[in-house]
């Protein structure tokens, strides 16, 4: 009787855990299904090349044109800018925290980094509109709403991701590596930069890819600082406004209808494909590391 009872509990609990696992899978499937069911017909109606490789976005013109090339390029530029700004700072911060930081400074820096991760993106956007945009306008020219402003905001936003994952992967390098390096007469700096950091390479790469994922999908902060102008490819400049895939959806979704609305969902499909590519490269890296 006793045994049966515990078996029964076992089965029930197994089912509950299995269901929990199933729900997240179902959520992903449902989102995929919705995106592709609504998005693919619109893409085929607009025409694949007219959608992806056309830089003219004029949903209210007659005849309307729905080209998102400018936004694809915009997303790539803004994300690249965020990487250029965020990765060196984040990486150096991670190295400092894991190898050089005295305990009393660590106690301040680490919680600050964690707090940075918890700030809602709308607050970043507000900060960007009130501080970064005027700063760029007065120091670099233009009207401030630009690729540069968006890159700075995103660069700050991806810092926590890069810092915490890089730091823990540097800390995870076995102590024996450092001891071996000291043993052959290397200095602390040589040990850190030539042994510890290279050994943590895959973790650092993972942090950068997760950072890219965060930057490319960020919406609320970018929409407030990027200016959202659809720029022809030859007019895109660092100090000129830009529209990304995410901001295209959020600026026009509220009133859009018909094919316009479907075209915005298709924009989401393209974004989704970007994220899938990023995740695939992530699992490629981790499987490579496991083989090594």
């Amino acid at each position, binding site marked *: 009787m006793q045994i049966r009872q515990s078996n029964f509990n076992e089965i029930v609990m197994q089912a509950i855990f299995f269901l929990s696992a199933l729900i997240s899978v179902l959520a992903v499937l449902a989102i995929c299904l919705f995106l592709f069911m609504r998005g693919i017909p619109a893409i085929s109606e607009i025409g694949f090349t007219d959608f992806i490789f056309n830089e003219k*976005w*004029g*949903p*209210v*013109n*007659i*005849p309307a044109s729905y080209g998102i090339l400018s936004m694809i390029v915009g997303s790539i530029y803004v994300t690249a800018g965020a990487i250029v700004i965020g990765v060196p700072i984040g990486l150096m911060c991670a190295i*400092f925290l894991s190898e*050089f930081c005295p305990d009393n400074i660590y106690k301040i820096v680490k919680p600050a980094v964690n707090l940075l991760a918890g700030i809602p993106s709308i607050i970043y956007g507000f900060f960007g*509109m*009130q501080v970064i*945009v*005027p*700063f760029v*306008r*007065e*120091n670099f020219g233009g*009207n*401030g*709403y630009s690729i540069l402003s968006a890159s700075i905001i995103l660069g700050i936003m991806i810092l926590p991701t890069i810092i915490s994952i890089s730091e823990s992967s540097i800390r995870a390098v076995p102590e024996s590596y450092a001891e071996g390096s000291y043993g052959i007469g290397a*200095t*602390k*700096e040589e040990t850190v930069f030539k042994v510890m950091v290279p050994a943590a390479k895959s973790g650092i790469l993972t942090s950068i890819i997760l950072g890219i994922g965060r930057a490319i999908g960020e919406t609320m902060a970018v*929409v*407030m600082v990027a*200016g*959202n*102008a*659809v*720029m*022809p490819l030859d*007019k895109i400049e660092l100090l*000129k*406004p830009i*529209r990304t895939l995410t901001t295209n959806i*959020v*600026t*026009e979704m*509220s*009133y*859009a*209808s018909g094919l*316009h609305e479907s075209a915005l969902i298709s924009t989401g499909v393209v974004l989704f494909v970007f994220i899938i590519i990023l995740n695939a490269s992530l699992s490629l890296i981790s499987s490579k590391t496991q083989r090594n």
Partner: protein
Amino acid sequence: MKNNRILFITVLIVILLIVFTGCAQETSDGQTADFDFDKDITVVARDAASGTRGAFHEIMNIIVKENDTEVDKLVVGALEFDGTDKVITAVEGDKYGIGYISLGSVSERIKAVAVNGAEPSVENVKSGAYSVSRPFLLVTKGTESDLVKDFLKFSESTQGQKITNDMNFIGAADSPEEYTASGMSGTIKVAGSTSVAPLMEKLQEAYQELNPDVVFETQAQGSSQGIKAAIDGSYDIGMASRELKAEEASELNRYVLAIDGIAVIVNNENPKSDLAADDITNIYIGEITKWNEVK
């Protein structure tokens, strides 16, 4: 070893100091500069799907119509925001900015300029002196039922006009009267402009509170659809956020539900307070790019 560590920390602190003092100096610089007419104008617009944008661009001839085509000529690089608040914040923060918002949203944060000498006030919009406005029309075929007439009476009553004014539109009825519930029942079918739809929805809710047996069927797919539906009789009331064309007007009864004024706004530090309509158009299509080219 120890020295290196100190060196590393010192360098880090120096870098941070340079960055922060840099920020502080530059921001204080910017605020003292005067209005520079040689600077580029920052053009701020609404997103493509916005009703305000549709109306403003049409009134100011930024949308160019030729035969069957319609092209929005908004200058490349114009900022586009998805809300009135963001347009205000952008113009408030940029001395050289220009934008447009619904008249009801004007505040001290920005300056609403006169267009062709007419101040953007409720009186000027009502009298027609201020040209940047559009009517919200309700049209019927003239064969409507008593129920539809009763609803139209409600929309022009004191209660209806109060709802209109509360939504920052300008009530157009000259001498509104108090509406008393008629207790009628039936269905009213309404179609048309997406810009009028939010106001229509509020009016319907209030009307249904007084006459709970009335049911509404509303479809919002644009002014043209509403006008067409009213002409062919498939809907009782058509909503339009533009003036009727001559051939449409001949077949329909026209009720002005409200007037929606659109204010052209600039930064408070901008010395201009009166712009010619042509200049505004030229700014928005990129023919004028600097404030010194504006008369």
